């Protein structure tokens, strides 16, 4: 089980990298006023067709051909966390169109995992890839912050 949301983000982002994404956008909106937390991971990777999409939400599915026993819990675990915390979970994807994973939770929900160390997630993603543009958009009721790894190479 993932300890916090930043680890879920890392996990979902790894899927994007495996799908050959060139651009990876992580958006986090934390609203105390409306009592929600939304996390969206969007990429321009190769996407999934409808059959794969229904399968990945099932536990024990992986896109890896080499695995004989199908494992792969990433999306299923995030969905479970969302549903446990009074939120919703959506995956939108089409072949060649990239994938967008949106997870929402009730911010004040007693079971909601902490946001965790989102910085480490971004740092690990940036350090491991200099070809992928990793973007972070973080917004609260009062403040907003943006980061793009593309800026680092200029």
């Amino acid at each position: 089980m993932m300890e916090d949301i930043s680890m879920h983000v890392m996990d979902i982002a790894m899927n994007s990298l495996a799908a050959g994404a060139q651009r990876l956008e992580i958006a986090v909106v934390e609203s105390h006023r409306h009592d929600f937390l939304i996390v969206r991971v969007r990429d321009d990777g190769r996407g999934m067709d409808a059959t794969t999409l229904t399968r990945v939400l099932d536990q024990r599915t992986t896109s890896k051909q080499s695995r004989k026993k199908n494992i792969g819990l990433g999306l299923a675990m995030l969905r479970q966390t969302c549903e446990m915390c009074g939120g919703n979970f959506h995956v939108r994807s089409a072949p060649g169109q990239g994938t967008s994973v949106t997870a929402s939770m009730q911010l004040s929900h007693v079971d909601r995992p902490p946001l965790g160390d989102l910085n480490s997630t971004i740092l690990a993603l940036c350090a491991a890839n200099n070809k992928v543009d990793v973007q972070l958009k973080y917004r609260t009721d009062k403040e907003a912050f943006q980061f793009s790894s593309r800026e680092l190479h200029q």
Partner: protein
Amino acid sequence: MNLDELKKLKEKAQRHVALREGNKKYRVVVSMGTSGIAAGARDVMTTMLDEIEKRGIDDVEVTITGEIGLVDAEPVVRIEEANGEKTTYANVNAEGARQIVSQHLETGKKVEMLAVGKVKEA
């Protein structure tokens, strides 16, 4: 999570990205599949990056890979040398990560306590 922390992110990312340029003697591959992350692979990786930076080692490239099938041994770190020799470390924690950097990457001496299997000759 606060905004000041996020602002530091830019500087830090800049330094870590700089680590990737040029020819490297060692390539560190951290297994970052679902099981790896759940076992703490991300923090192992950031600890290694920090330690590499602190010690000023510049012939190392740190990268990540997906699930490698050693689920019960996660977090797994593999070190590939320029001559093709590979060493796999299992059950690495923050302390182990620092040890790998200070011994294997800095002085070339393997951390045998954490290594698994036999040394694979190229």
